């Protein structure tokens, strides 16, 4: 589709491109692109347009309920909220969570990584990567992918099903399980289930081999564009293990800059949160967290798969470490990989790592130990839980009274932490691909893909409801709306 912007100006006297809804992401959002008098991109914004307010309506509830309540924030990554909330509850109890329970929680989190990343790569971004950014929009979707690459779609569906089934085996259901609780978990995994999932792993590894080949083909195909998809230095934040390895559940927080230099290390969650401020804008319900010591511009940071691979010293499993070495070639010796397009590649490395960790855990006899829950009352009035969600670092911060009733709730979500970087990414893409008088659907899709690389979950990040359409606007220097495209 081509839109004659100059012709539209005569009618609308405005210069704004609007993309709405953004498709193949979770939640509702729009993109606006403002043009200057010369028809060049002056600014681009990613607006999140829905709101839910979990932080407010949870006040007055018991912290015991929070894992079950906050898992309802999202149907895609409920496990992430379940675990972060349980860990905040652990801190309020002030008890040591039994090692078998921690192992089981880790197992569910790895399964979550597999299912969520598989959905993102194969079915949400797959149409762009495999059919092309300029493909007919009527075909550039899940149905088109099924038609053109059925073997890829089949493999992706089975990989996601593997992760979902493992979550279900642990938590009775894959969407909104309420299995993890303050102090531990409610149940273990049967021996029959362990054997069932171990037997499926060879197929899952073969699927990853195929996906990595496809990813590397896509990197070759888009080599000329990679420097437009959010390619800029920023801070990167993520958990790392005590030995510096890739970590999703525990460990400490590390901040690395865009040259690979460690800015801060060995941060506890509360120490990190003390360094973060959440800025707000009137045009979005999504906040803009930044690292306070460096200010709003220099304090922009990214979380998620790309960040995790940039902050860790190594993965800690053989297949993932082999792939991580190749991944790091794209940043150069000792440097971070800075283009957000590599989020796709990082997701695949993380699936591989998660499969290897799942294999290790399923073979671990600790799962035979049935001491999976510690019991206590309120021993601390503040609890912070942190875990790595598929989209990045997730914090649940609760303050309770002596009866465990919540007085304050703060949820800091991965997608929110990427908000500044997402806005900068779409401006970089718009500047590269949009100029003056014509809007081409393929070019707009590239701008949209600039959001999709982050695999944002806006239901989580604003704790809001429903699917997220996208709306792209093109605005003139005087703020007048010039053109817009909506979807959904």
């Amino acid at each position, binding site marked *: 589709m081509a839109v004659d912007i100059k012709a539209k100006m005569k009618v609308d006297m405005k210069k704004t491109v609007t993309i709405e809804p953004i*498709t*193949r*992401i*979770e939640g509702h959002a729009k993109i606006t692109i403002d043009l200057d008098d010369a028809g060049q991109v002056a600014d681009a914004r990613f607006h999140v347009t829905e709101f839910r307010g979990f932080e407010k309506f949870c006040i007055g509830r018991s912290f015991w309920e929070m894992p079950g309540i906050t898992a*309802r924030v999202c*149907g*895609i990554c409920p496990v992430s909220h379940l675990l972060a909330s349980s860990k905040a509850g652990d801190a309020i109890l002030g008890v040591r969570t039994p090692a078998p329970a921690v192992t089981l929680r880790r197992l569910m989190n790895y399964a979550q990584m597999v299912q969520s990343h598989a*959905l993102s790569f194969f*079915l*949400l971004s797959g149409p762009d990567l495999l059919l092309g950014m300029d493909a007919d929009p*009527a*075909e*550039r*979707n*899940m*149905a*088109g992918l*099924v*038609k053109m690459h*059925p073997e890829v*779609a*089949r493999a*992706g*569906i*089975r990989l*996601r*099903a593997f992760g*979902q089934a493992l979550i279900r085996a642990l938590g009775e259901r894959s*969407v*909104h399980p309420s299995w993890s609780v303050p102090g531990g978990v409610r149940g273990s995994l049967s021996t029959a289930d362990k054997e069932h999932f171990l037997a499926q792993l060879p197929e899952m590894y073969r699927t990853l081999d195929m996906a990595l080949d496809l990813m590397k083909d896509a990197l070759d195909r888009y080599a000329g564009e990679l420097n437009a998809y959010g390619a800029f230095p920023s801070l990167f934040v993520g958990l790392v293990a005590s030995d510096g390895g890739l970590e999703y559940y525990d460990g400490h927080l590390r901040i690395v800059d865009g040259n690979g230099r460690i800015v801060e290390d060995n941060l506890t969650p509360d120490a990190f949160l003390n360094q973060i401020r959440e800025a707000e804008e009137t045009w979005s319900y999504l906040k803009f967290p930044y690292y306070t010591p460096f200010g709003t511009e220099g304090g922009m940071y990214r979380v998620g798969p790309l960040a995790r691979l940039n902050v860790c010293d190594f993965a800690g499993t053989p297949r993932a470490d082999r792939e991580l070495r190749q991944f790091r070639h794209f940043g150069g010796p000792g440097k971070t990989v800075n283009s957000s397009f590599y989020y796709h590649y990082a997701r695949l490395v993380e699936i591989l790592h998660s499969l290897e960790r799942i294999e290790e855990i399923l073979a671990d006899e600790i799962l035979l130990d049935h001491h999976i829950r510690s019991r206590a009352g309120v021993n601390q009035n503040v609890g912070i839980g942190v875990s790595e969600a598929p989209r990045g670092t997730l914090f649940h911060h609760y303050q309770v009274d002596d009866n465990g009733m919540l007085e304050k709730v703060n949820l800091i979500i991965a997608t929110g932490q990427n908000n500044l970087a997402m806005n900068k990414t779409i401006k970089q893409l718009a500047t590269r691909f949009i100029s003056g008088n014509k809007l081409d659907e393929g070019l707009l899709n590239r701008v949209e893909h600039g959001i999709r690389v982050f695999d944002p979950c806006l239901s989580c990040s604003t704790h809001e409801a429903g*699917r*997220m359409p996208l709306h792209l606007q093109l605005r003139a220097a005087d703020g007048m709306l010039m053109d817009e495209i909506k*979807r*959904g």
Partner: protein
Amino acid sequence: MWLIIGYGNRLRQDDGAGYRVAEILSAQLDSQRARVLAVHQLTPELVLELVAADVTRVLFVDACRGQDKPLVMEKLNQTAATGSCGHQMTPELLLHMTQSLY
């Protein structure tokens, strides 16, 4: 065997009617004749349930606004599937994917 998939979000009250119907049917129907799933939303991996060798017919149960009658049954056309999809799917797209993949 029939495959019955009831879906919806019970936290949204009426939206969860399909889910609740599936729960009731699951307790009442002979498991040798019908497999009943109560799910939050339709997701791609349900394709693997649809292609099970013993499934001869699929019934989707969902809440819907704007109907003249309380209960409406209609035959779905997989060719009417649209490709637009976020993290949840229409039954038509699920049928379309099943037909195309298997």
